[in-house]
């Protein structure tokens, strides 16, 4: 088993499925059915294969595992280099878990251009997995940016009424951030003479240069995450994207930003990260409070969840830049938890949207009387989002706040208000949609969850509870890698302090 090129297989198996779907010919309904089946089969197989990574992973080392290396562009010293460590490995699994769920969730709601839709999702899976596995900055950028193409098409072709505007906004916003990062990565490459991420992780850059590169990378990751004030593309993209598109957007795409901070900003530019940490904290605290208040005022369910994502992702930046072991672990855990919970919440909205074609909170109310199972599922994920103990959200937020307290009590205090506000807007949403009297005629014939929909939610429920009740295996996987980053940051801080003393 050890010799299998797991990562390449997991990355490129979906492409094989996409190629297969591309050649399907025949009557439209047969093509659609076959496309769905092939897509589900491929993504399911990919998920099973990715479990192999989980079981063969050695959590006792911070080194990269399952490494694969091949010559790619020798003239530029750029290689095809894949590998995962404790930070990236869980994200690979998150991606491979969510794609089959997305495909299952769009089984009946997507009726036009099913073939292209499935191809787009499989293409996306390749890009997502590739981003987390890439150990060469050019390869990383390739996948990181390549995601834009399928996502642009998914929003633009299968989205809602303002899909064109949203698709463009999403694309151009992220592209503008990323190209600056590209220049930073190129500078890094020419300075260090290599594009190999493991070598760059231990390369010491001069402090002045670090600050520029950190800022350029920050532009890319802050847009992707998204951080206030560059978050405005997110509500638009979420609202207009089809359900599965929102799931991937919230579930995995946003994590690119957090992953980027952990993989690039913190270990490669440690001194700049320490210098700029107050900036990140300030933006994060605004991002915790302000979008939460905005979320309270939303009339559109998807928009509300989108704003809640901004607030939740701000926890990630606080945790990451607290530069403590619990903080960074909390940040990763929060990303994974948010990946599952917010993805599930978009699916939850998708269920009623498929039935009534309305996302307005005002057009619902009292659904618990017609759809008890649905109400239960919704409640579980709502509480996961609030961070109730026993769900995954609690572990993430708790660790982040713990880390933040170790770093600075004020930052932790302000961030903690987000927990309260989060409970406020999520419970308010739940009350308006699920509870109360069932008075609207349009809702009186609503059907409860179908077996297919239950199948969509079942794995997510299991994961949320497992992560909430027994987080140890997941934390164990990332622990050594996180420690490695934090140690590097401690060394940098000591060096900074020493040079500050010397100046004095």
């Amino acid at each position, binding site marked *: 088993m050890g010799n299998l090129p797991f990562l390449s297989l997991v990355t490129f198996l979906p492409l094989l499925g996409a190629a297969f779907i591309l050649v399907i010919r025949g009557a439209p309904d047969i093509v659609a059915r076959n496309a769905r089946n092939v897509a589900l089969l491929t993504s399911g197989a990919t998920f099973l294969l990715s479990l192999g990574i989980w079981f063969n992973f050695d959590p006792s080392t911070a080194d990269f595992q399952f490494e694969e290396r091949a010559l790619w562009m020798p003239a530029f010293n750029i290689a095809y280099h894949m590998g995962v460590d404790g930070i990236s490995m869980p994200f690979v699994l998150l991606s491979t878990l969510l794609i089959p769920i997305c495909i299952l969730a769009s089984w009946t709601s997507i009726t036009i251009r099913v073939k292209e839709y499935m191809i787009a999702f499989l293409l996306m899976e390749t890009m997502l997995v590739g981003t987390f596995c890439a150990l060469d900055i050019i390869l990383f950028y390739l996948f990181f940016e390549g995601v834009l193409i399928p996502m642009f098409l998914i929003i633009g072709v299968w989205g809602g009424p303002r899909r064109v505007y949203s698709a463009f906004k999403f694309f151009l916003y992220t592209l503008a951030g990323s190209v600056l990062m590209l*220049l930073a990565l190129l500078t890094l490459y020419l300075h260090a003479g290599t594009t190999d991420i493991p070598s760059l992780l231990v390369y010491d850059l001069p402090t002045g240069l670090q600050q520029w590169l950190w800022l350029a990378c920050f532009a890319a990751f802050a847009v992707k995450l998204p951080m206030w004030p560059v978050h405005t593309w997110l509500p638009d993209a979420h609202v207009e994207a089809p359900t599965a598109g929102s799931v991937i957007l919230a579930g995995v795409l946003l994590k690119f930003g957090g992953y980027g901070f952990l993989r690039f900003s913190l270990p490669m530019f440690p001194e700049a990260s320490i210098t700029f940490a107050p900036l990140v904290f300030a933006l994060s605290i605004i991002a915790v409070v302000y979008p939460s208040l905005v979320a309270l005022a939303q009339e559109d369910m998807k928009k509300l969840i989108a704003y809640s994502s901004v607030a939740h992702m701000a926890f990630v930046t606080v945790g990451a830049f607290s530069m403590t072991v619990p903080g960074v672990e909390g940040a990763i855990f929060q990303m994974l938890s948010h990946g599952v919970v917010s993805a599930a919440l978009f699916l939850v909205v998708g269920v009623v949207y498929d039935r009534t074609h309305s996302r307005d909170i005002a057009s619902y109310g009292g659904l618990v009387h017609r759809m008890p199972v649905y109400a239960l599922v919704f409640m579980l994920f709502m509480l996961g989002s609030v961070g109730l103990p026993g769900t995954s959200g609690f572990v993430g937020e708790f660790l982040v706040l713990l880390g933040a307290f170790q770093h600075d009590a004020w930052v932790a205090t302000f961030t903690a208000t987000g927990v309260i506000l989060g409970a406020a807007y999520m419970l308010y949403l739940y009350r308006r949609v699920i509870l109360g009297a069932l008075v609207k005629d349009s809702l009186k014939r609503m059907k409860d969850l179908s077996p297919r929909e239950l199948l969509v939610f079942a794995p997510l429920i299991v994961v949320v509870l497992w992560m909430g009740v027994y987080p140890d295996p997941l934390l164990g996987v990332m622990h050594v890698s996180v420690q490695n980053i934090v140690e590097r940051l401690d060394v940098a801080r000591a060096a900074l302090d020493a040079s500050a003393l010397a100046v004095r």
Partner: protein
Amino acid sequence: MIRLGVVALVLTLLLVVTISARGAVVSFGGMFIVDDYAIFFKILVLGASALSLLIAQEYLEIRGIARFEYVVLVMLATTGMMLMISANDFIALYVGLEMQSLALYVVASFHRDDVRSVEAGLKYFVLGALASGMLLYGASLIYGYAGTTSFSAIGDVVGALQGATPPVGLIIGLVFVIAGLAFKVSAVPFHMWTPDVYEGAPTPVTAFFSLAPKVAAIALLLRVVIEPFGDMLAQWRQIIVFLSIASMLLGAFAAIGQTNIKRLMAYSSIGHVGYALIGLAVGGEEGIRSVLIYMAIYLIMNLGVFTCILCMRRREEMVEEIADLAGASRSNPMMALALAIFMFSMAGIPPLAGFFSKLYIFVAAVQAEMYTLAVIGVLSSVVGAFYYLRIVKVMYFDPATEPLDRNYGPELRLVMLATAVIILFFFLYPEPILSGAGVAAASLLSGS
């Protein structure tokens, strides 16, 4: 008739390929040079000419202008380009350039019953003659101050200055020569003719204009500034930097409002020249190599785009408005997919070839620490992405109007498929273009 032309060009291409790997050869009293650099560009130009002839046939028949002169003129122009690429002397340069240009003026107005086509030809002629005049004036000044027209001899004169400020006359001469050549590559501010000529000329002619002559002119520009004036880098770099920034910005912003796809491609080509000039401004082997890679990939992308444009017809009539593409993803799925691939590639989105061509340019720029140029470059590529995406949007997001015809011939299908496959899978095996460009760049620099 067209077939014969294609065969002749392909045979020439084979001849050019077989003479490679012999080192630089100079003949005609030092006027004509064949080195790896020239061979690289000759392969590009011959390939581009042959393929743009191949895709022209159907259009010419539909518009009723399938006359044998077309092939003759294109081949004459190609001969001129061969001469330009191999020019090692200002006299040879001018002869090659004029041989190319005169044929191009005629071919631009080839559809002589069409007002726009005739206007395009006339406009191109008047402005082209002005540019030739400037170039000639510059060359005569250079002759006056250097005492020779040979590139290598001028190189010796400039080298003998050993870093001292060159005589003002030489600098002014160089400025005029660069201005004349900037006209030929349609760099801002000498780009005015491009949108009108691209829009007015028959589409296969536009395709040809945007491919072979542009590449040949870039080859010439590179050789002129690197070989004789390589030691005056400090003097010409600022001109190239200005041309580059102005072209990138104008190419990005002026294209936004266009509704005609040929006009849009004109602005797009202006923008692309701006990127290529970044590499030239950097200079050195890295910079030159990145320009060569850029031009090779640009050629393939543009060929693909124009093949798609030649497939745009409705009820046996050619159409060229962007809005005509609405719903093409339904009526013409393969053409729409190919065009979408080219558009994403032109916007520089990985993993398509267009990303790599920009990547190498920016690697060179960052290496030379020309950060301003690099930052303006990446940001204008974001603006550019907007209008490339607009075409994808029209094809994929907009509801279908009347569907486009699907009866285009096998040549168009073949070229479209081949170019799309190359652009899509370039990343798998980039080595041939990279090493070819590397060898060519090295040979250009060793000659100076």
